[in-house]
């Protein structure tokens, strides 16, 4: 059972449910992206070596798939608390660390909110100026505003929910 599934089993409030469904959706999309990345890169090697040809658009698609996998992975990593540096906080008592969590979530949410706003404006410009044939590439770039939106929301949700119990913050 994943950490998120375990949290869901313990806590069935709407906030926990929302977090659970979002996590599942992100996991599925990111996994599909990684499977496609692997399949496409192998197909490209095959096409290049056996048929001396390239799959049209595969190179660009692969590069954007890396972005999708990475940015959705970052959102999942934040949800499951894999991203943290505890240079000083590691020496603090547990109670202090728990008190620090809410301010950290607010700060993180605000920073991600600004980045989301910048990313959305940037992406809309890209979309508006992309030639018809390149619209699909511009569409793939939507992962950056989307992931910053998800990060902003995630930190905000965590701020509302508050610190997890010590058992859950492994």
């Amino acid at each position, binding site marked *: 059972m994943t950490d998120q599934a375990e949290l869901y089993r313990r806590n069935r409030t709407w906030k926990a449910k929302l977090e659970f469904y979002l996590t599942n959706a992100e*996991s599925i999309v990111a996994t599909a992206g990684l499977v496609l990345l692997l399949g496409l890169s*192998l197909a490209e090697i095959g096409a290049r070596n056996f048929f001396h040809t390239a799959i049209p658009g595969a190179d660009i698609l692969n*590069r954007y798939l890396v972005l999708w996998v*990475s940015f959705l992975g970052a959102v999942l*990593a934040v949800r499951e608390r894999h991203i943290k540096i505890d240079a000083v906080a*590691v020496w603090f008592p547990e109670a202090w660390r728990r008190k620090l969590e809410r301010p950290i979530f607010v700060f*993180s949410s605000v920073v*991600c909110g600004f*980045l989301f706003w*910048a990313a959305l404006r940037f992406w809309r410009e890209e979309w508006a100026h992309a030639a018809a044939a390149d619209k699909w590439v511009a569409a793939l770039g939507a992962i950056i505003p989307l992931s910053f939106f998800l990060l902003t929301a995630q930190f905000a949700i965590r701020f509302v929910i508050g610190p997890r119990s010590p058992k859950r913050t492994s």
Partner: protein
Amino acid sequence: MTFTVVALLIAVAALGVPLFIVLGAGGLYAAHSAGLDPAVLIAEMLRLASSPNLMAIPLFTLAGVALSRGGAPERLLQVFNAGFGWMPGGLAIVALTACAFFTAFSGASGVTILALGGLLYPILRGENYSKNFSLGLLTSSGSLGLLFPPSLVILLYGIVAGVSIEQLFMAGLVPGLLLLFMLAVYSAVVSRHIGISPRPFSLPVLFSALRTGMWDLLLPIGIVVGLFGGYLTATEAASCSAAYALLLETVIHRRLVSVSQLYEIFRETIILVGSVLIILGIALGLTNLLIDAQIPMKILAALEQGVSSQLQFLLLLNAFLLVVGCMMDIFSAIIVVVPLILPLAQRFGVDPVHLGIVFLANLEIGYLTPPVGINLFLASQRFKEPMLNLFRAALPFLLIMLIWLALVTYLPHLSLWWKKI
């Protein structure tokens, strides 16, 4: 004002704010002070999509996670035990090689301590190796192998510094083997001193271990031959490695047979990759703004007043990176520090490939130094020992690694021997 903001950001990072948030806040501030639209940060982030080698990171990570979850550490341990267990200090050498091998695939060195440390510690103690020696060996082995292909930190350095990945892999081989050799000699001396007699060599045992482990061994051999023989690029090697590792664990060893197991492997990969690449994406924007603001040039101007030779620069670099290594994890350190020191190193005539090896060697050692050396921290969790005890136990290994660092830093030929061919 800028100094205050930087100090504040360092303080919030120390309090536990994720590094990518700290870098994002720094980037937003830098863009604001330069009178630029923060969208420049996003434009830089999209530059990630133009890096041809970036694809190798998720795919090599996938290979490492599949092997790790599929039981490769146990199979490798059996092979190395049968192959090297008969030597003086055999079991310690087995531990060193298995850890190095596994770290090359798992990338982040902490994973090795968690995955192999628990397996090896009771075996070492069972063979009468002292508690201190066993703990020191396993704590320091956690970062061996970072210089061997297909190490993720080398890939990341190559991407950040814009240096050929193949050349970096080539450059890491001799320094990596040299460190293994130095630690193996020390282990042999200690085991002789303790009076541990080598075990007899058994060909049937070796064959039996090879039957199960040879498929795992073929993977790094394939990568090295493919890359250095010019048959594969780094990204092609990564795709083939991921496919091979999945085939190995699903069809040959049949350790990962259910869809849910495979899903978990992909998910773990995505999380590992995401937690590194988001930092890289955001740092690209910030470091670009810092470079635009001539920060490296200002550091260089300040540095040139006291530092006049390459030797002095390298000494200073070693001291600086040892501090960085014990404060930051290796991925973040590469992303944040490399773009700033690269122009300085070039100014003092340090080859960027050599700089990469020196950089990674320093950070490898930083993992063992307090206050927050991550190997000490993880080993303390794994072996339930205070960090100070582990530091004391790792001290002889740390001293050997410092001698090795001096050799790697001041003898560039160890890293650049292939340039003479």
